[in-house]
């Protein structure tokens, strides 16, 4: 630490950091634009100017940019003396900024507004013309209003340099510099939404939100967790007038940091969907017409099933909801609502995490890793935020090079200059080309089983006590050796795999490599992606029970309660048909109607993540609590509440259910730490969901009734559905949306962080339920089961936009998604005699369009998962026969242009097998 003096005040600062970030850590109000805590310094905006004095006698000093300055021990600085320059900088930026704050979506949470006021520039002296630009249509997610640009370069640094996007750039020069695509068109990066938060002005805005716009302070919001995949990014949804308007990032230093993926940000439209189940329905028989019933009756009918029904839990419902179901039907009658293959895989993940000496890598950990092996997981499509993290990992080589020449780590542009296109090693073993291939040192295309054999061999090379594999080709062995060499040489080696390739051997092989990488106290990093927001939570609640969905269907039960689940996505259609038809009574609790729900006698309207409070457990076993954002209409309740019987006191507060789950989960006591405790208040107050500037409260329902209604109550007890409560500036134990005096934008976050960009001072970043296993190395046998294949060997292909059940029903996601299809090597396309507009009949399944992809191994077929038109669960492991479909016409929802791949087309240009 170094001691510096700034305008007479003494601060202890980290000399390895830049002065701006250090001053922000000390909560000083120093304006800035181009610096970003995740992206470091480039020194372009010149807004963070301070005066640096050479010594005690120096009266004049020298103006420097704080973000480009390493604080020196004993040095003297002044922020005040550079005040005028900073005002000049704003004034000159403003010469081309339009006066459209009233109609700008950024208004009220605009960093430019804040910095303008802070800098003291208030009076406009420029009387010339402004330079103007044309806007582009950048697709369904992001709006573009270039005239508002202040040329801080954050967007292009984020989109290209940070997120690896290739279809966005900075163009032209001088005061006509332009940020956009080479022509209009949908942004291709899966992380484009972050532009809206990274851009300090209203150039890039959330287009979905713009259509239902509301000022930041008029949105009711809460700390929440993304329900769209197993990563568990922290989000801040905002509601007004009973509809969810938008989702913004909620900072969690260990998980998502400052960034979300576009599925999480734009995929919540289903909450407001016209297809929402918003009334409770019942019918006496399968073929009778359902009729609406009151919530009281609905609950009575549901609870009446107790003792007779089995319960099928859900990987997308909260721990609390699953626990309540389990409690209602009893442990032995509680089944996991995931496919049988997934059931096995998830249990394997838990076994690895619990019983192998590996370090489960958080996203923060992943970003530190400097050699990576991705095993059969298309992370961009299955756990997108991890893909963004891997794009940072490969940059660690630049940081190493910088350290060698003593260049500070925050010198972003300089480090990129130094590293050029050098990347830390990343290897991908996959059944098809993926979106991370551009940063990979080597990509190997092969079946998941092949990849598993190669991976087992890597583990053996790393540690000869790990089981060996025979029969690898020379090329495969060369790959094995280079992977092993790079992983071994790394300070923080990482293996990423997951359940999505449906190959158990791959998980075992991943575990063996991570185990083999262990060295003394340091364990190899392992991240195993899981499909859904609470996949692991559900499986942990199974508590070792072998009650798979298949068993449920064979249980002979005559009554079933299905929690937030469409069984047709979990098992072959015919099996589900016969199970459902054997039931006398089927209760389904869900948000949107689906095939399973259509067969139910009792349908209960259950709240989405935005309307419920609860806990999810993410891919690393991190339990995270989310608070309901708003109260839905009376007919809708959270599943957890529906399922509680008098045992919990009919309407129990949520923590009672959390406590129940805690008794089952490993380290369940940690769940208590996720909230400040059920009876928490600060100075007698709870935390508010509404901003202190929330407007219209007394009149917003005046068109219905002139009497202001009583504020909604939250029985769960920690937050209010109102403006009343302790502001985060006083106490941020429950940290909702950041705001601080003078800092209305999301940049105010630093005021709540221990050090700018770092951990929050208060609040929880979740609790990891798995203890680090420090035991001796143990190995999984290098066994790869391979069924005999007739026809094509299939593998699943996932889509960030469309494969996930709920987000797929959001309008914005649909605009980026496509209907089901198969992907084939061009040679197979020819072999099957497929013309450009032909379809493919898939055995046991529907007929669908096809996509030719050069990377796909001939004889194999990629089958889209979760997209409308195919049920992957109908596939068997014995291979699939494909035929040209008769009388084919491509369906309307087939939008090949939404599928972004590097190997599309009919040529087989993509390197076969091992590609360097």
């Amino acid at each position, binding site marked *: 630490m170094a001691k510096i003096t700034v305008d007479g005040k003494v601060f202890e600062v980290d000399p390895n950091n830049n002065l701006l970030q250090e001053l922000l850590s000390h909560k000083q109000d120093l304006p800035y634009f181009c610096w970003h805590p995740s992206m470091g310094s480039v020194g372009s905006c010149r807004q963070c100017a301070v005066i640096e004095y050479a010594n005690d006698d120096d009266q004049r000093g020298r103006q420097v940019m704080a973000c480009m300055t390493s604080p020196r021990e004993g040095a003297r600085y002044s922020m005040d003396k550079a005040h005028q320059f900073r005002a000049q900088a704003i004034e000159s930026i403003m010469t081309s900024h339009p006066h459209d704050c009233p109609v700008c979506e950024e208004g009220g949470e605009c960093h430019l507004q804040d910095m303008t006021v802070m800098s003291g520039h208030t009076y406009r002296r420029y009387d010339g013309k402004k330079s103007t630009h044309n806007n582009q249509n950048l697709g369904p997610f992001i709006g573009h209003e270039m005239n508002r640009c202040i040329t801080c370069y954050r967007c292009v640094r984020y989109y290209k340099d940070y997120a690896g996007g290739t279809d966005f750039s900075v163009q032209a020069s*001088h005061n006509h510099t332009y940020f956009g695509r080479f022509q209009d068109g949908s942004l291709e990066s899966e992380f484009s939404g972050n532009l809206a938060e990274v851009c300090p002005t209203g150039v890039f805005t959330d287009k979905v939100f713009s259509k239902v716009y509301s000022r930041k302070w008029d949105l009711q919001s809460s700390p929440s967790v993304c329900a769209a995949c197993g990563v568990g990014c922290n989000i801040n949804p905002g509601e007004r007038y009973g509809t969810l308007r938008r989702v913004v990032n909620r900072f969690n230093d260990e998980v998502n940091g400052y960034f979300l993926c576009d599925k999480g940000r734009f995929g919540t439209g289903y909450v407001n969907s016209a297809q929402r189940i918003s009334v409770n329905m019942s019918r006496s028989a399968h073929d009778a017409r359902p009729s609406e019933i009151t919530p009281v009756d609905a609950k009575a009918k549901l609870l009446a099933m107790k003792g007779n029904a089995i319960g099928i839990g859900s990987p997308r419902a909260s721990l609390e909801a699953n626990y309540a179901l389990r409690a209602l039907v009893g442990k032995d009658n509680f089944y996991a609502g995931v496919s049988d293959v997934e059931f096995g895989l998830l249990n394997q993940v838990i076994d690895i995490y619990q019983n192998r000496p590996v370090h489960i890598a958080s996203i923060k950990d992943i970003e530190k890793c400097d050699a990576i092996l991705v095993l059969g997981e298309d992370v961009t499509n299955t756990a997108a935020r991890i893909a963004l993290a891997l794009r940072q990992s490969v940059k660690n080589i630049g940081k190493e090079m910088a350290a060698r020449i003593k260049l500070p780590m925050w010198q972003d542009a300089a480090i990129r200059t130094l590293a050029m296109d050098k990347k830390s090693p990343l290897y991908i073993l996959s059944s098809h080309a993926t979106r991370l291939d551009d940063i990979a040192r080597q990509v190997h295309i092969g079946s998941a089983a092949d990849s598993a054999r190669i991976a087992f061999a890597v583990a053996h090379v790393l540690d000869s006590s790990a089981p060996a594999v025979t029969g690898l080709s020379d090329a495969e062995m060369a790959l094995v050796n280079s992977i092993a060499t790079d992983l071994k040489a790394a300070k923080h080696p990482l293996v990423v795999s997951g359940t999505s390739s449906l190959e158990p051997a791959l998980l075992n092989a991943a575990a063996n490599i991570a185990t083999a990488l262990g060295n003394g106290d340091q364990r190899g990093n392992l991240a195993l992606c899981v499909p859904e927001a609470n996949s692991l939570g559900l499986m942990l609640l199974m508590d070792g029970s072998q009650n798979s969905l298949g068993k449920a269907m064979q249980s002979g039960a005559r009554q079933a309660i299905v929690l937030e689940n469409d069984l047709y996505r979990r098992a072959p259609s015919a099996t589900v048909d016969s199970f459902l038809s054997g039931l006398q009574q089927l209760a389904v609790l869900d948000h949107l109607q689906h095939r399973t729900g259509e067969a139910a006698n009792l349908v209960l309207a259950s709240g989405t993540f935005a309307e419920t409070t609860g806990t999810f457990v993410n891919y690393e076993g991190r339990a995270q609590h989310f608070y309901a954002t708003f109260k839905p209409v009376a007919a809708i309740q959270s599943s957890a509440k529906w399922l509680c019987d008098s045992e919990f006191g009919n309407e129990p507060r949520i923590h009672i259910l959390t406590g129940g789950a805690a008794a089952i989960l490993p380290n369940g006591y940690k769940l208590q730490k996720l909230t400040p405790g059920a009876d928490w208040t600060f100075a007698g107050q709870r935390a508010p969901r509404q901003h202190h500037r929330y407007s219209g409260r007394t009149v917003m329902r005046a068109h219905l009734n002139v009497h202001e209604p009583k504020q909604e109550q939250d029985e769960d007890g920690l937050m209010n559905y109102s403006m009343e409560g302790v502001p985060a500036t006083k106490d941020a134990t429950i940290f909702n949306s950041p705001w601080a005096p003078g800092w209305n934008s999301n940049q105010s976050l630093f005021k709540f962080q221990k050090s700018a960009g770092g951990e929050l001072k208060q609040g929880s970043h979740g609790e990891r339920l798995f203890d680090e296993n420090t035991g001796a190395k143990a190995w999984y046998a290098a066994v790869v089961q391979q069924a005999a294949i007739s026809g094509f060997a299939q593998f699943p292909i996932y889509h960030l936009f469309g494969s996930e059940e709920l987000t797929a029903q959001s309008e914005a996601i649909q605009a980026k998604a496509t209907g089901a299809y198969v992907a084939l090597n061009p040679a197979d396309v020819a072999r099957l005699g497929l013309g450009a507009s032909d379809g493919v009949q898939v055995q046991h399944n529907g007929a669908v369009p096809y996509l030719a992809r050069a990377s796909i191994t001939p004889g194999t077929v990629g089958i889209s998962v979760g997209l409308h038109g195919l049920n992957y669960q109908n596939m068997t492991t014995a291979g699939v026969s494909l035929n040209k479909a008769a009388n084919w016409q491509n369906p309307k929802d087939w939008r090949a242009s939404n599928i972004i791949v590097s190997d599309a087309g009919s040529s087989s240009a993509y390197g076969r097998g091992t590609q360097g």
Partner: protein
Amino acid sequence: MTLTNKPLTKNIEIGRAPFNFAQYQAAGGYQSVARALTYKPRDLMKLVQDSGLGGRGGAGFNTGLKWSFIPEPDGGPRYLVVNADEMEPGTFKDRLLMEHDPHLLIEGMITASIALQATMAYIFLRGEYKEAEHALLQAIKEAYAAGVLGKNIQGSTFSLDMALHTSAGRYICGEETALINALEGKRANPRFKPPFPQVSGLWGRPTLVNNVETICNIPGIVTNGVEWFKGLGINGQFGTRISGVSGRVKKPGCWEMPVGTTFRTLFEDYAGGMQDGYQLKAFLPGGGSTDFLMPEHLDLPMIPGDVAKAGSRLGTSLIMVLDDKTCPVGCIHNLIKFFAHESCGWCTPCRDGLPWSEHMLVKLENGEGSLKDIEILKEMCGYMAPGNTFCALAPGAAEPLQSGLKYFHDEFVEHVNHGCKYKQH
């Protein structure tokens, strides 16, 4: 044989085609290559350092010292890049050298590359310099044919390739790190230093960027030695340099002369003084991005330190003359307009400060300006001062403006009250 005292221009005869390889060699050319090959690279750098040669690109930093920061070879590529962008307003010395004696530059580049152990040498040429392009391409071809370029030069273990890149045309491409970006096909924004180009330059490899004229000095120094070079200068200076004059003088042009020559000698003896009917009002001593000097400064020697003391910069040492019949506000406007257009757009004071300044100068010229505009213009100069911007473009641009506001303050005010008197007749 007496050694030449015009090592840069001895082969130049306007009107005659430049020497081809054989003619150039016959005139004593390419001796430095053979000599250089007998040196240890570090000794060669030391020799250049000892000669006191300062960079002719504008900053004047000791060339040999600049070279010495290059790390030892590691087997990978190393680059010499010659900065032939020459877009500084009023500057045309590199053009003379390249159009009329291309082999001198190529010899210098080979010799410099031997010192630097460079594996590849580039010339980054201003796009409009078509004649220089043809001359250089021809000369490079001849040099390859003669075996002074390519593999195992003159039977040694040293190999060097050379290529010419013609710029797409931005003033900022002359800034050495922006030049490197441009050469890599990236946007011509300057880079932050460190890392310095010597350590991580072109494509992340050790790179030296030098001005054309700087490199043209190398053959003489290596062939004739440090003492000879030192003896060429006057007033305590070493070597020769090309200085010149543009504006309403009798004989505009550029000439090689001893370093340390006074402005007056340049202005009166070489350029023949003002055309009849014109008075010298002021001059920009070294390109458009230097502060005005006044007639009383003519007796200063063209030495960086002396010029700095008078409140300006020597820059490229090609002076631009402002006469009494040309409006200083218009002259400054013209320069600021150029610089505003050439701003790379990276940093705020330059990108947004220059167009605003331009706007006020337009107003003043059109008689629509106000005293407040003059005040704001003064403010702008401080705003764009060194340290406030990312590179030297904007501070350079501010120099004629700030000195103009100082020396011609009354004329600025007159523009507010009466409009531009120069336009009225």
